[in-house]
C-alpha cells in the first residue's frame, strides 16, 4: 500500500478495494515499526486517527465522501490542532495544547482526511537540516547518517519512508522544497497568500507559506485542492478563485517556454547534479518545450536580504513567547524581567536565539535603514528580475539545492554554510512566487531535486509541467530499499 501514490490510494478507497481503517492501520503500523530510527513524528495520534478513519468509511458507505475522504496524512507540527500538542519543534511549546484548529487543519478535517500525527521540524521552522528540533534530529530514509533537509524534514522523511502518503509543510526560504529534494519526494510552495496562514505558527510573516508534500505532482494537486483558498482570518490571504488543480495536469507542454537562469548553474552546483538537471531539460525538449537562457541578475543578493528580513520578522513574531499566557515558563522567577529572560533563554534553542538576536539588531534604533529597509529594496530588485524573466518564459527550471543530502553534524556549527543550502529556493519566497521540487535522479544513492518556478498563481501550470515529467520518468516512484516491504 505504502508504495502507491496518494492518488492511487484515493482511487482504491473510492472503488472500496480498501477501507480507510485498513489503510490507517497500515500506516500506523509502519510508523511504529520504523519511526524509532527516523524520528519523523513528534506526536502520533493513533486512536483519533482510527476514529476518523471509521467515520470516513461510514461516510463512504453512505455515498457522502469527497475525493480524499479517508486518506491518512501527516501534519507538520507548526499547524495548530485543537486538543493536540502543537510544539513547533520547540521546548517553548512542548506543553502547548492548541485551543483551536488552523484553517489548513479545518480544511483537511472538512475534506475527511485522517491525521496520523504531527511531524518533526526545525524549531520554529528555522533550519535546513532538522537538527534544530527540541525533539532530536530526523534521519534521511535514503541514508540514516544524512539529514533529511529542513525545516519540514519530518514530513518529507515520513513520506519517503512510506509512513504517510502525504503531508503538509511550510516554506519560508525553502523549507518545503529543500527537504523534498533531499528526501526524493515532491513538494510545492504556493504563491504567497494562496494558503491561509491562520493557526500556522508564525516565523517570518511576509515569507511564510504552507503547502503540500507527497510522492507525485498529481498528489500535490489533490492536496492543494484542499489547502488553497481565501481566508478572512488571514489578512494576507488573497481572494482569488481556486481552480481544480487536477483538471490541467494532462495538458501538453508542447511549445512551453522554459527559462534556465544562468545564476543558478554556477560552480556551487554539484557537477553530477548538473548532469541530472541537464537530463531533465532533455526530457522537456523531447516533450516539445522550448528551452532558453535567462538572467536573474540579483540572485546572489537573495540570501543576504533573506537573512535580514526573516530574522527581523522572527524577532518581532517571537516576542510573544514571554511565559505569560501559554507555553513554557521558567521556574521561580524573581521578578518580571527575570521571568521574560529565563523563559526565553531556557525555552528557545541556539539557532532561534541567534536569529532573534540578528533580527533585534537589524530593527534596533539607528540600524533599521541600513538593514531592514535595504533588504526590502533588494527584495524589490529580486522581484523585478522575475517579472522581467516571465515576460519571455512560462516557467523557470533549476536545481532545488546545490548538493544532495549532507551528513548530520556537517554544517551544524557553521550557520552561513547551512544558510547557503537554500540558495536556489530563497529568491522565490522573497518574490512571493510559487515553486515546486520534484525528484530527478540520484547522485550515488542520494536523491536530487528539480525546481520549477512559476508566475503568481501559476500553481496549475507548475503541477501540469511537473506531472508531464513524471509521466515519462520514474524517479518519484523509487523508494529507499529498506522501506519498500
Amino acid at each position, binding site marked *: 500500500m505504502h508504495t502507491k501514490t496518494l492518488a492511487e490510494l484515493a482511487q482504491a478507497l473510492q472503488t472500496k478495494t480498501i477501507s480507510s481503517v485498513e489503510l490507517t492501520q497500515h500506516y500506523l503500523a509502519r510508523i511504529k515499526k520504523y519511526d524509532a530510527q527516523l524520528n519523523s513524528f513528534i506526536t502520533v495520534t493513533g486512536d483519533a486517527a482510527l476514529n476518523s478513519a471509521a467515520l470516513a468509511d461510514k461516510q463512504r458507505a453512505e455515498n457522502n465522501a469527497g475525493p480524499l475522504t479517508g486518506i491518512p496524512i501527516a501534519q507538520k507540527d507548526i499547524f495548530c490542532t485543537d486538543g493536540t500538542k502543537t510544539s513547533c519543534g520547540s521546548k517553548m511549546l512542548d506543553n502547548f*495544547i492548541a485551543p483551536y484548529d488552523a484553517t489548513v487543519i479545518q480544511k483537511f478535517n472538512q475534506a475527511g482526511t485522517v491525521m496520523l500525527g504531527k511531524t518533526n521540524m526545525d524549531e520554529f521552522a528555522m533550519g535546513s537540516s532538522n537538527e534544530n528540533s527540541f525533539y532530536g534530529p530526523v534521519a534521511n530514509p535514503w541514508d540514516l547518517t544524512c539529514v533529511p533537509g529542513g525545516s519540514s524534514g519530518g514530513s518529507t522523511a515520513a513520506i519517503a519512508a512510506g509512513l504517510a502518503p502525504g503531508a503538509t509543510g511550510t516554506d519560508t526560504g525553502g523549507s518545503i522544497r529543500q527537504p523534498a529534494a533531499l528526501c526524493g519526494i515532491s513538494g510545492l510552495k504556493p504563491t504567497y*497568500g494562496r494558503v491561509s496562514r491562520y493557526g500556522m505558527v508564525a516565523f517570518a510573516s511576509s515569507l511564510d507559506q504552507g503547502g503540500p508534500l507527497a510522492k507525485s505532482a498529481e498528489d500535490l494537486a489533490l492536496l492543494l485542492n484542499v489547502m488553497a483558498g481565501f481566508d478572512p482570518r488571514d489578512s494576507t490571504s488573497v481572494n482569488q478563485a481556486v481552480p481544480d488543480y487536477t483538471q490541467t495536469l494532462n495538458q501538453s507542454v508542447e511549445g512551453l517556454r522554459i527559462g534556465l537562469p544562468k545564476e543558478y548553474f554556477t560552480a556551487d552546483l554539484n557537477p553530477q547534479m548538473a548532469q541530472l538537471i541537464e537530463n531533465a531539460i532533455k526530457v522537456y525538449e523531447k516533450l516539445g518545450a522550448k528551452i532558453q537562457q535567462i538572467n536573474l541578475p540579483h540572485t546572489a543578493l537573495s540570501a*543576504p536580504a533573506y537573512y535580514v528580513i526573516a530574522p527581523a520578522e522572527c524577532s518581532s513574531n517571537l516576542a510573544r513567547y514571554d511565559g505569560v499566557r501559554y507555553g513554557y515558563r521558567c521556574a521561580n522567577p524573581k521578578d518580571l524581567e527575570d521571568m521574560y529572560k529565563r523563559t526565553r*533563554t531556557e525555552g528557545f534553542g541556539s539557532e532561534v536565539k541567534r536569529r*532573534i538576536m540578528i533580527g533585534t539588531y537589524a530593527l534596533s534604533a539607528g540600524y533599521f535603514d541600513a538593514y531592514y529597509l535595504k533588504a526590502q529594496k*533588494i527584495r524589490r530588485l529580486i522581484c523585478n528580475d522575475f517579472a522581467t524573466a516571465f515576460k519571455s518564459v512560462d516557467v523557470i527550471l533549476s536545481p532545488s539545492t546545490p548538493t544532495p543530502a549532507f551528513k548530520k553534524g556537517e554544517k551544524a556549527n557553521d550557520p552561513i554554510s547551512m544558510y547557503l543550502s537554500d540558495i536556489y529556493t530563497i529568491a522565490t519566497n522573497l518574490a512571493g512566487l510559487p515553486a515546486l521540487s520534484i525528484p530527478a535522479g540520484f547522485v550515488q544513492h542520494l536523491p536530487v531535486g528539480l525546481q520549477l518556478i512559476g508566475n503568481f498563481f501559476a500553481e496549475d501550470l507548475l503541477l501540469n509541467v511537473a506531472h508531464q515529467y513524471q509521466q515519462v520518468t520514474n524517479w518519484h516512484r523509487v523508494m529507499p530499499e529498506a522501506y519498500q516491504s
Partner: protein
Amino acid sequence: MSLTPDEVKKIAHLARINVIEEDILPYAKQLSRILAFIEQMNTVDTATIEPLAHPLDLAQPLRSDRITETDLRSKFQKIAPEVEAGLYLVPKVIDEA
C-alpha cells in the same frame, strides 16, 4: 560591521535573552560573521528603489466591526502557566510602599 561584547549584551537585553559571560565573545564573532554576510547587500546601489513589504503589493482588506469570535477565555486559560480568578498571574510588578 563587527559587534563588540557590549553591543551583544545590549542586543540580548533588547531581545530579553540572557547570554552568559563566556558566551559573549563567541556570540559576538558569530553574529559579526553573519552581519558581514548580510552586508553583501551594499554591493548594489538602491538609492532610487522603493522598498517592497508585500510581494503582491495588496491593500489591507477591511471588514465590518462586528463581534465574530466567541468567548474562549476559560479554554485559553487552561493552557496558561498560572491563572487565578480568570486573571493571568505574573511576578509582582508594583511594590507595596
